[in-house]
């Protein structure tokens, strides 16, 4: 569906036109029918990558193959839906006027357009606000109408830049369901996010972008398997006593909210517990630190610093 190879983007900034490299060779590929997550901290180049894919910015190097097109013909856009980051719309338009305008640009008109608008407005829960000007919309409402306009042409390939931003938990749930619904219809979705829990819940595969480079790509499972599971043990009791008992084990100790917290790897769990039983400390809780993309994200980010 989409193949990006060694994409490079330089921007000229300032009066003297000093060159800044934003993308330093981004490569990834999105397969047909999957939800692909593009993850990375702010400024990593997620939006710039999207801009190059859609032809808003000219690439400085590399290749982009979008549905068999390599030089960004305008016609291909009738098969694409796009939600920009922090969607800015014409604030003097009402919700339905925006959808009608965007539909017209796709060449949809008449009853087909009006029917499509009704369906989408109710799908994103915005039917009540269809006649309200966008300047009166909240951030979450803008995000929803933005998603509706991205779907107006029933696109095969949907690019969503930060679709969850500005939404409350219920709104996020609804948008997640909507994305999964599109996937069930056979659509391909590329979304960027720094809400890692959402990416984990939605995406089949993920690319981790750091400072203009893709540092990891894989399924969520593959990426998570690379992370060690740690345990956290909360104890009540004297610190010296415990330190004595776990001295030989690789355990991190810290004090948190009046408790002594021990962090350790899964493989020494039994030995740590055994040692604690010998001490005078009382176990308050023991729980595994969840394997998450966040761990990987933080790990990679700290490597990059």
């Amino acid at each position, binding site marked *: 569906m989409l193949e990006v190879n060694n994409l490079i983007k330089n921007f000229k900034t300032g009066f003297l036109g000093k060159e800044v490299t934003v993308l330093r060779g981004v490569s990834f590929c999105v397969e047909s029918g999957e939800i692909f997550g593009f993850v990375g901290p702010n400024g990593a180049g997620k939006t710039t990558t999207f801009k190059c894919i859609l032809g*808003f910015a000219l690439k400085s190097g590399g290749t982009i193959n979008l549905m068999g097109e390599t030089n960004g013909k305008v016609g291909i*856009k009738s098969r694409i839906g*796009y939600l*920009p980051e922090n969607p800015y719309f014409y604030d*003097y338009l009402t919700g339905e006027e925006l959808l009608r305008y965007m539909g017209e*640009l796709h060449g949809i008109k008449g009853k087909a357009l009006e029917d499509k608008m009704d369906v989408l407005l109710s799908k994103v829960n915005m039917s009540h606000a269809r006649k309200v000007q966008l300047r009166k919309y909240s951030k979450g409402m803008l995000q929803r109408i933005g998603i509706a306009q991205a779907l107006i042409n029933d696109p095969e390939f949907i690019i969503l830049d930060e679709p969850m931003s500005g939404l409350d938990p219920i709104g996020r749930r609804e948008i997640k369901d909507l994305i999964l619904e599109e996937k069930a219809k056979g659509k391909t979705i590329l979304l960027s996010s720094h809400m890692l829990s959402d990416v984990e819940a939605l995406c089949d595969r993920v690319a981790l972008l750091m400072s203009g480079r893709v540092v990891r790509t894989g399924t969520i499972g593959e990426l998570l398997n690379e992370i060690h599971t740690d345990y956290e043990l909360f104890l009540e009791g004297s610190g010296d006593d415990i330190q004595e008992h776990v001295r030989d084990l690789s355990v991190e100790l810290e004090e948190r909210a009046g408790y002594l917290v021990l962090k350790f790897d899964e493989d020494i769990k039994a030995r740590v517990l055994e040692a604690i039983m010998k001490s005078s400390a009382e176990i308050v809780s023991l729980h595994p630190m969840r394997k998450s993309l966040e761990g990987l994200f933080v790990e990679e980010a700290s490597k990059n610093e």
Partner: protein
Amino acid sequence: MNRVISVAHNTFREAIRDRVLYSLVIFAVLMILSSLIIATISGEQYNKIVKDLGLAAISIIGIMISVFLGMGLVYKEIEKKTVYNIFSKPIKRYEFILGKYLGLAFTLLLITVGMAIILFLLVLYTELRYQGLIEFYYGGHHFAEFFNAIYFQYLEFLIIIGIALIFSSFTSPILSVLFTFLLFAIGRFSGDIRLFAEEIKNPVSAVFAEVIYRVIPNLGKFNVRSEAVYGGSLSGELIFYTTAYAIIYTLALLILSMIIFEKKEFK
């Protein structure tokens, strides 16, 4: 073409929901109406005053609308990042530019027609009241010339929108307004610049003045306000050539805007 119309429709909608436009239109109507008051203290020159002041009001307000709405035509879309939405749809960049231009041109058409109707009613009111005097002093009502003056005025607006559109596609609103007014002023005095070029001895300055005269539209051509008052020869030929001049200039300006915008990156 449908996409061009959609963009034009939205540009029109934006203009008529803009408060700046309303204040300018209200100001124009007040100026036109005030000509009636000034006419009453002007002895027997009512006709001249109403027509002159009224046409000047239409001209000033129309130019201000062309410049102030023109400066934001493209700039605002880039600045507010609405271009991302537009160009994720299958629309070509030149279609967008054409749509933006036509939207504002249509807005100005409606405003010009509106102001012209108000002014014409005032002219009718004063002229029919003093019919004998008018015929004696001015040798007739010259209604055809009056409408011709308004038509030429609209042609001038079309060129000014084109100039504002070019600047809007690559510079900030303040510079846009500055450059557009500058070109407008040069255009209005284009004839004088030509005269200057003929008089001048220094060959470098003469060539420079000649180039300015050739490149910048001669907006003086569109001013036939005195014919609207005193009558005069506005031949079919003149109307045809002036129209052709405006169309060719406008097309050139549009093509230039399209070329500039085609290469534009949205950051």
